[in-house]
């Protein structure tokens, strides 16, 4: 019994550690002072000042748009690669498999630097396009492995009987495989969205001034001190993403 209680306490303590900074951000977004550590009473003034801070709101919207775009393109790229790895045998297949885990395990700084170098050499101006391509590169392996795991559980006879009945490759993928792997595709999208939203280092290298996303804007503010309307923005964003993800999660579950 005591062991059980200790176990639950331990689990709760770890979650507490993970969530305390978020709670602090949310609590201090209502703090009636720009102090980041002393409580001066409740106010909504930071939410009001947030509404007038166009550049802050715009950078948040750019972050969200980038994450949605990068998640979508990684899902497309990652799913195509997963299906190809599953259905085809080709030269370099093992290299492709191997690179997937190397990309997932390599620290962001290695990817950020190699990508910014290729963009500069190719003369692609740093901005939305370079951010999108880079985020797609570090997210797609997570989609590929998730979809591959699901494809392994798909009965191969289904595709074969499809072929026997005269379905082309495209038909087999479109009408047999895609409906079966849809939950994994969705999970991959969510994973990519999460990774993209959380990224700092790759964006730091490949981002440009004319498409300044939220983490970079905040990073440039760290030296001078961050105004509490950033807390307000983060609290609002947190609730917004939470609601959207929960809704889509329920939607997908209801469909299944």
């Amino acid at each position, binding site marked *: 019994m005591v062991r059980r209680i200790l176990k639950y306490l331990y689990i709760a303590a770890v979650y507490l550690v993970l969530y305390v900074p978020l709670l602090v951000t949310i609590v201090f977004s209502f703090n009636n002072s720009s102090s980041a550590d002393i409580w001066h009473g409740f106010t909504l003034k930071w939410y009001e000042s947030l509404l007038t801070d166009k550049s802050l709101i715009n950078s948040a919207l750019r972050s969200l748009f980038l994450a949605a775009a990068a998640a979508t393109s990684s899902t497309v790229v990652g799913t195509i690669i997963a299906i190809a790895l599953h259905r085809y045998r080709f030269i370099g297949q093992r290299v492709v498999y191997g690179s997937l885990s190397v990309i997932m395990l*390599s620290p962001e700084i290695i990817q950020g*630097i190699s990508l910014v*170098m290729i963009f500069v*050499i190719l003369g692609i101006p740093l901005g939305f396009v370079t951010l999108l391509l880079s985020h797609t590169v570090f997210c797609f392996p997570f989609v590929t492995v998730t979809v591959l795991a699901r494809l392994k559980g798909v009965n191969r006879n289904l595709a074969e009987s499809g072929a026997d009945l005269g379905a082309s490759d495209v038909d087999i993928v479109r009408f047999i495989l895609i409906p079966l792997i849809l939950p994994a595709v969705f999970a991959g999208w969510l994973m990519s969205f*999460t990774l993209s*939203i959380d990224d700092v280092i790759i964006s730091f290298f490949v981002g440009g001034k004319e498409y300044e996303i939220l983490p970079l804007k905040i990073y440039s503010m760290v030296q001078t001190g961050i105004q509490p309307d950033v807390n307000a923005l983060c609290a609002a*964003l947190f609730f917004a993403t939470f609601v959207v*993800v929960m809704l889509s999660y329920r939607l997908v579950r209801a469909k299944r």
Partner: protein
Amino acid sequence: MLKSTDNFCRQAVLYFIFIWFGIMVFAPNLLVLLASFLSRDPVWYLRLPLNLQNYAALSDPQLMSVILKSLNLAFCTTLFCLLIAYPFTYFIARFAKEYRALFLMLIIVPFWTNSLIRNYALISILSENGLLNTFLIKWGLISQPLKLLYTDLAVFVGMVYTLLPFMILPLYAVLEKLDLNLLEAAEDLGAGATAAFFRVIVPISLPGITAGCIMVFLPALTLFYVSDILGAADSAIVGSVIRDQFVVIKDWPVGAAINIALTIFMLFLLHLYYKSGNSVDQEQPIW
């Protein structure tokens, strides 16, 4: 018999894969390797002739001391994350399926607030008037507030906090599949609980442990914004040095050389990872 449209599809998809991996994965890394042997150019960043001087710059004693300090920090972070994450993950992996999904979701949720912001929030906890000092004084554990913020200790706390989920997720992937019958079998064969744990469960979860350690250790060397936000002026880590070479000093070849050294170190760790067993192999998600 392949129909011609099928053949066309196959060709198109394979070309796409080769071009994607070629341009976005292999070319960038080869470019860094090449750059590490080139010379610095004030306008074009890189120029001939080829040389090895950039690697000689790695032996600079000042850089060496930063690297050693950073390795020490990364080692402590990894060890601490493993010690916290292993029992935690072991417990949550034993819950019923629907609860496990919820527990896992709760680990992912904090990611939706960018890690830079979450690290910034740690300031309110670690500062002199912050949450932690206030509590410690209230409980009478200390009389004077502790100097926590802008120290190496704060960077360590930030790293553990930021990277803990990256230890939990790969561990979860192996512990979730753990067959409890193995434990029973071990006990039937006379192993005590401790022996069963260290000789059955730990070896089985070794791929998850190595994957988690890699996913914590390498970022702990390179997440420069954590030391920027929470550390003192001398809390620089390997990532801060690379960042400065590229962004401040604009010496790409030396930055590339440090990056290559880091990549070689990473490949060495990956080699250990593949040797640690194939139950989490290329075809399995690591989380």
